């Protein structure tokens, strides 16, 4: 199967889906069919067989195929959810266009083109920010400006790395490269101190748009960062890059955990919990070891599943609680059972509570840390506790009436979706090997993990 289909099929389908937007079920069915076709194409694609886009090589390896299929599955879940909980007319067409561009960014070998495709996908995301109700204009600006500022930092990276290869004695080039990587990826991954744009966007945008940003965009950025570190080994050997990533991760985990504890608004709380989890991912990546990288990717995958669960639950609870329900948990469970259970389970998983998937991958990260590092362990545990407490405290706020509220019960497909995700989070928590072992093998096969970076 030609890899170009993964790029152009969703881009081509976005137009007809946009035209079908008034017939919502038809638009959802067409979007779902496209994503299912993408899963089939990606599953059958020949690994290592190149295709060419704008004269640049596209290649798929084991690891990137796994990530792409994960993105397509997550997108299909979002589309099914949007069928019963509409997320705005632009959601389905924008999602398809974004998937096409992100597929291209994941497969293309030229970093410069990958960043440009990523920036295009990010700009299309802007059309999702206003859902059925208007998002605050600040939310759109606070997303657009960091995106446009971050992209140039990454676009100059090939120039800097090539210059360093020609002039390895130039220490200034090392410094500029570390700064460019730190600012560019720091902004895109919402790592502290560049994290402040994410809470506003997640609070203002529809739940599935926020989930897309955290679950899919972040993973693509992470995959690109790992690719940069693999392709420029001098960055890990001769520069303080890994130290910067570790320090940034520690700060991100701490800031995310503390702000999550203090937060009452569910959207912002979700964003801070996601930021805290990104801190864990960066700390694991910063170790540079084989298991560190595996645990970083595994935690990033579990983070995506859990954030999607919380975002779906948040949307369901906001819409399907009766006004007179007040803050009675029993009454809330009658009207939005999936939403309430998913919110509690997702909150606990995001905080790394035992039995859930978040705990399993955190444990892996703790194990991959250098021995006897009490500071690391203390900060990471504190961050997790902050998130769990934040979710427990926010439960009563969640059950308050909201402007989106309707007078009907939560639809059955939404309940089934949410409970399935809860089940998956528990399964991966109890049997983490189901995810971690194949992921480690894939990273080894793709050459991303050898004896570390």
């Amino acid at each position, binding site marked *: 199967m030609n890899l170009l289909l993964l790029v152009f099929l969703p881009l081509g389908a976005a137009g007809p889906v946009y035209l079908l937007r008034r017939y919502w079920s038809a638009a959802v069915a067409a979007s779902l069919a496209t994503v299912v076709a993408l899963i089939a194409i990606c599953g059958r694609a020949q690994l290592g067989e190149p295709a060419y886009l704008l004269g640049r090589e596209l290649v798929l390896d084991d690891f990137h195929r796994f990530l792409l299929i994960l993105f397509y599955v997550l997108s299909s879940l979002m589309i099914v959810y949007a069928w019963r909980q509409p997320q705005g007319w632009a959601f389905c067409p924008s999602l398809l266009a974004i998937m096409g561009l992100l597929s291209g960014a994941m497969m293309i070998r030229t970093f410069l083109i990958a960043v440009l495709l990523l920036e295009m996908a990010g700009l299309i995301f802007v059309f999702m920010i206003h859902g059925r109700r208007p998002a605050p204009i600040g939310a759109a*600006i606070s997303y657009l400006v960091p995106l446009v500022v971050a992209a140039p930092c990454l676009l100059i990276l090939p120039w800097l790395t090539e210059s360093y290869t020609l002039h390895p004695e130039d220490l200034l080039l090392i410094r500029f490269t570390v700064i460019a990587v730190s600012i560019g990826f720091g902004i895109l991954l919402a790592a502290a101190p560049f994290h402040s744009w994410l809470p506003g966007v997640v609070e203002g945008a529809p739940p599935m748009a926020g989930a897309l940003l955290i679950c899919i965009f972040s993973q693509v950025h992470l995959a690109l960062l790992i690719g940069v570190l693999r392709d420029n080994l001098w960055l890990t050997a001769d520069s303080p890059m890994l130290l910067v990533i570790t320090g940034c991760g520690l700060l991100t985990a701490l800031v995310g955990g503390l702000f999550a504890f203090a937060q009452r608004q569910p959207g912002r709380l979700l964003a801070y919990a996601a930021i805290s989890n990104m801190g864990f991912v960066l700390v694991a990546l910063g170790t540079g070891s084989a298991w560190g990288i595996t645990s970083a990717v595994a935690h990033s995958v579990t983070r995506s599943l859990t954030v999607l669960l919380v975002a779906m639950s948040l949307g369901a609870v906001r819409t399907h609680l009766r006004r007179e329900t007040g803050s009675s948990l029993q009454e809330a469970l009658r009207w939005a059972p999936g939403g309430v259970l998913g919110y509690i389970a997702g909150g606990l998983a995001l905080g790394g509570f035992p039995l859930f998937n978040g705990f399993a991958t955190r444990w892996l990260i703790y194990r991959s840390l250098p021995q006897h590092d009490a500071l690391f362990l203390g900060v990471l545990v504190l961050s997790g506790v902050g998130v769990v407490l934040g979710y427990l405290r926010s439960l009563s706020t969640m059950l308050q009436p909201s402007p989106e509220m309707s007078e009907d019960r939560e639809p059955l497909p939404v309940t089934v979706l949410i409970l399935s995700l809860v089940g998956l989070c528990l399964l991966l928590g109890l049997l983490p090997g189901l995810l971690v072992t194949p992921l480690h093998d894939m990273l080894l096969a793709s050459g991303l993990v050898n004896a570390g970076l």
Partner: protein
Amino acid sequence: MDTLQDLFLALASLSHLELMLGLLITGTVIIVLEDWRLNLWALMAQVVLVGVLLVRVMPLQVALVKIIVGGMVCVILYLTARRVQWGGELAATHGSHDARTAGREVFTMNLWFRLLVALLVAVVTYALGSRHPFVVQPQGISQACYWLVGIGLLTVVLTTDIFKVGLGLITFQAGFGILLATFENSLSVAALVGVVDILIALAIAYLTSAQMAFTVEDDTA
């Protein structure tokens, strides 16, 4: 295309000092003045001047593509401003908003303040471009890049209006485009950067229209 090429070649005879002066004026107009028509004219002039500057580091056809894309961006923004009747209803809305918030501002970012900021950026740009040029030849490239990036970012920082933020972002992109052109001048990259520019303009157009529509809805409610 030939006429455009001839016109362009005639403009290419401008010295780097004249081009820098032109960019200084257009950038200052964008950051200082509020009138959308003047801002858009300044943006269009800036696109042409950047294109003329780029001919010195990239093939003529690629530079022409950049100018055509810049023209399309200006058209998108012009149609948006006309559609939301900027200067009419939107100005009235902003006027009432300004009146409400005037008392709460720490200090007013009025015309003189913005002019002072533009002057400061010009001085910093000159110093940076002279002491740390990223390319020595042709002259003026580094200064133009620093100036446009700086003034674009400050335009974004000094306003809360989404349309003006858009002008700032496009100016920033133009500055960065100069830097990118010095090490990557292939047509495919220029085309993709052009698509990014158009998407930024479309995003700004969408957000400006949405802001206006929601404001009108709120007023009606």
